């Protein structure tokens, strides 16, 4: 057995200096040439286990028990010299953010060949030749000269591939991939995934693939270990985990990504929001070009796009934070003033916004009562007992107990904070809520609950949503209409069933095909389809 982890326990410390268990009695095995996927939500301990395969724990953590053996050789408590010899040569690591993991002061090739040199694997020229060969195999442009660049001179997707080259240059037995594609856009992710998989297969290396995305790991792994709160939940063949999960938690994870939400059809209704031919710019750089869209009453319009598509800028224009260069925004029949100062209190009340990051969306120094109560006082003039009663009602509507009113956000989980954000928006009794990536900072199960809550609220009170997202699964789950944006332009739009079904618009099709699907042969099919 190449890698054998038995009853591994790793402890860490929290901010107050208390000891916390990060990994609880986890065992796993990886044989030569095999890929094991480690999957779980944040706090599952998956990265910690990945690093433990190199005999490494982050500062502040320590091995509390168990063993990590590589080819029978114990790594827990091994002497430093022995670990240095193994790291980079026999076990290599690919980090989540290549932009941060490459040293900004050195050229890529120097950093890649450094591993080779440190482990005395032969002359630099040979290492360089091999690196160039790997650059080519991973589809990097101009392989001969690619290595001469500095990290900040190449794109994120290219850097991630360069990091894979750095891992493979010593022909290691095992590669630990730690969320290597999480920071990438979907259309970039697919290239990187394919390149990484081809490269490790050719070298016959084994791999630990750490991710939170079940569909991604399905393309890479032979077996999957599901983790939660630092403990193993379920271990099985990839196909079995996807098709016949045994544990409830795994079932939940699988069903979330399949987007099994109840839907209700949209009907023809009056238009609440209309954006007409908007151009917008930050300084000299134009980011929105001739953007138009409309949102009907009690309907959800999803605005989809990758980073740089201008979808968040659109939200800023609609809310009045960024006055457009030309074009206009109409809301409930009135033309809204371009800048915030020109909008009436009533106009502001009817148009609310929910943010991506629940941690910064609510003031950590205000109680839930103050956060939800403020719009009630500000817009509706509520005070005293009436105010307190209404906050209680709102808490009930977002499915939180009434005593939460006295808590501070620091005492709440991410999902609970996001619910508070929703309640704050609801408190204003709006007609339209703009949801800016409201689920992308949340773990999948929590995100799913939030989506369900939003759907329920819409049915109850006939709210309209403008849903800004990069995630097509979310679009499928919640949208009636879809607007696809690319580089500041609307490239495709219409009813969801038309936009998201063949025949596709070119870019929409590319987006949809790039989203990993929850089956093991998806990547193969996509690659075959291209060839």
């Amino acid at each position, binding site marked *: 057995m190449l890698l054998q982890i038995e009853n591994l326990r790793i402890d860490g410390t929290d901010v107050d200096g208390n000891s916390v268990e990060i990994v609880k009695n986890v065992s796993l095995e990886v044989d030569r040439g095999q890929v094991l996927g480690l999957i779980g939500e944040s706090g599952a301990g998956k990265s910690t286990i990945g690093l433990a395969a190199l005999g490494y724990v982050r500062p502040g953590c320590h091995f509390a028990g168990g063993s990590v053996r590589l080819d029978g050789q114990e790594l827990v408590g091994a002497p430093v010299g022995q670990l240095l010899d193994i790291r980079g040569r026999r076990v290599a690591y690919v980090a989540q953010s290549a932009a941060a993991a490459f040293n900004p002061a050195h050229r890529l090739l120097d950093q890649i060949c450094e591993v080779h040199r440190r482990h005395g694997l032969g002359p630099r020229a040979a290492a360089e030749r091999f690196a160039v060969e790997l650059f080519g195999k991973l589809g990097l442009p101009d392989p001969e000269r690619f290595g001469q660049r500095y990290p900040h001179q190449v794109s994120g997707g290219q850097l991630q591939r360069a990091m894979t080259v750095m891992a493979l240059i010593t022909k290691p037995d095992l590669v630990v991939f730690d969320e290597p594609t999480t920071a990438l856009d979907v259309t970039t992710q697919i290239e990187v995934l394919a390149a990484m998989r081809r490269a490790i297969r050719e070298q016959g290396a084994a791999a630990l693939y750490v991710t939170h995305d079940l569909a991604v790991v399905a393309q890479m792994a032979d077996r999957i270990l599901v983790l939660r709160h630092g403990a193993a939940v379920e271990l099985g063949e990839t196909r079995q985990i996807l098709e016949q999960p045994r544990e409830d938690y795994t079932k939940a994870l699988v069903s979330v990504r399949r987007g099994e939400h109840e839907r209700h059809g949209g009907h023809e209704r009056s238009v609440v929001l209309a954006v007409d031919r908007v151009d917008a710019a930050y300084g000299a750089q134009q980011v929105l070009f001739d953007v138009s869209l409309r949102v009907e009453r009690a309907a959800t319009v999803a605005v989809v796009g990758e980073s740089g598509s201008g979808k968040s800028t659109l939200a800023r224009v609609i809310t009045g*934070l960024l006055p457009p260069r030309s074009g206009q925004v109409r809301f409930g029949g009135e033309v809204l003033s371009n800048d915030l100062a020109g909008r009436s209190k009533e106009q502001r009340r009817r148009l609310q916004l929910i943010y991506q*990051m629940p*941690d*910064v969306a609510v*003031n950590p*120094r*205000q109680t839930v009562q103050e956060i939800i109560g403020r719009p009630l006082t500000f*817009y509706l003039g509520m005070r005293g007992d009436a105010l307190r009663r209404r906050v209680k009602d709102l808490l009930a509507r977002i499915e939180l107990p009434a005593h939460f009113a006295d808590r501070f956000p620091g005492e709440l989980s991410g999902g609970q904070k996001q619910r508070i954000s929703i309640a704050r928006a609801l408190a204003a009794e709006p007609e339209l809520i703009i949801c800016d990536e409201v689920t992308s900072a949340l773990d999948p199960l929590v995100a799913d609950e939030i989506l369900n809550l939003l759907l329920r609220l819409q049915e109850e009170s006939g709210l309209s949503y403008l849903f800004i997202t990069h995630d097509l699964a979310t679009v499928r789950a919640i949208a009636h209409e879809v607007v696809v944006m690319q580089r500041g332009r609307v490239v495709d739009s219409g009813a969801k069933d038309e936009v998201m079904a063949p025949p596709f618009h070119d870019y929409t099709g590319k987006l949809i095909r790039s989203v990993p699907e929850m089956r093991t042969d998806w990547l193969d099919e996509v690659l075959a389809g291209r060839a």
Partner: protein
Amino acid sequence: MTAALLLRRMPWITRLGLLLVLLFAFLAAFGPWLAPYPEAEPVADVWQPIGTAGFPLGTDTLGRDMLSRLLFGAQRSIGLALVITVLSFAVGSVCGFLAAIAGGWADQVASRIVDVFMSFPALILALLVLSVMGSSLPVLVLTLAFIDGTRVFRLARAVAVDLNVMEFVEAARLRGEGIWWIARKEILPNALPMLLAEFGVRFCFSFLLISALSFLGLGIQPPAADWGGMVKDNAQAIAFGLPAPLLPAGCIALLTISVNLVVDFLLDQASRRSRRG
């Protein structure tokens, strides 16, 4: 976070610092009533050594009781530094917050003016103004409060700019809240830990500056006792082997060390909290 919890987290050295700060605060408050002799009248021979009967800390260059002058000086030196710091915070932090929230040209103008004043060493600026305006108490306080205020402005603005881009502030702005409400309810409570630590830093700064000016003869004027001036008065004693100037100088050092110990702890806590999100 409650005060009790903070206290429990303190390492022993921070607790020692806090204890000394409280002790100095007590002496500053009640010093003149505790003093056995008057502030400005000679009561014995000059330069009696430490341990002389009736004068536990000896006498100074004019035969005044050291202990009494130290006690009177505590109130004046610490009290003045406190007044200066409070003034500078009242003006500096309000202006800094408003500049950060308002943004635009008002912020630009205020920041550039503060840049110019900060590009000038504080001691030199104080020397310049005091040499022309004379060293009366109001001039001294206002000058130092202004110099200190520019530093407070810079920090308050920086903290507020960081908070201002947070989405909860944007939400308040979208709601239509006024600038004053945003400063008071959204920014201030979150800036408080940093401001508290900065209060300690600025207190030390103005305390040291006022002591330095008195030491140079441009601060508090004799015969009023203050620690910086006492160092100057007794400087020659050292040539005769007497540590007399070290007493007031040591008091200055001990107080600033104590305050800095507490500040260090507060800054550490604030940075941990911000890391936690």
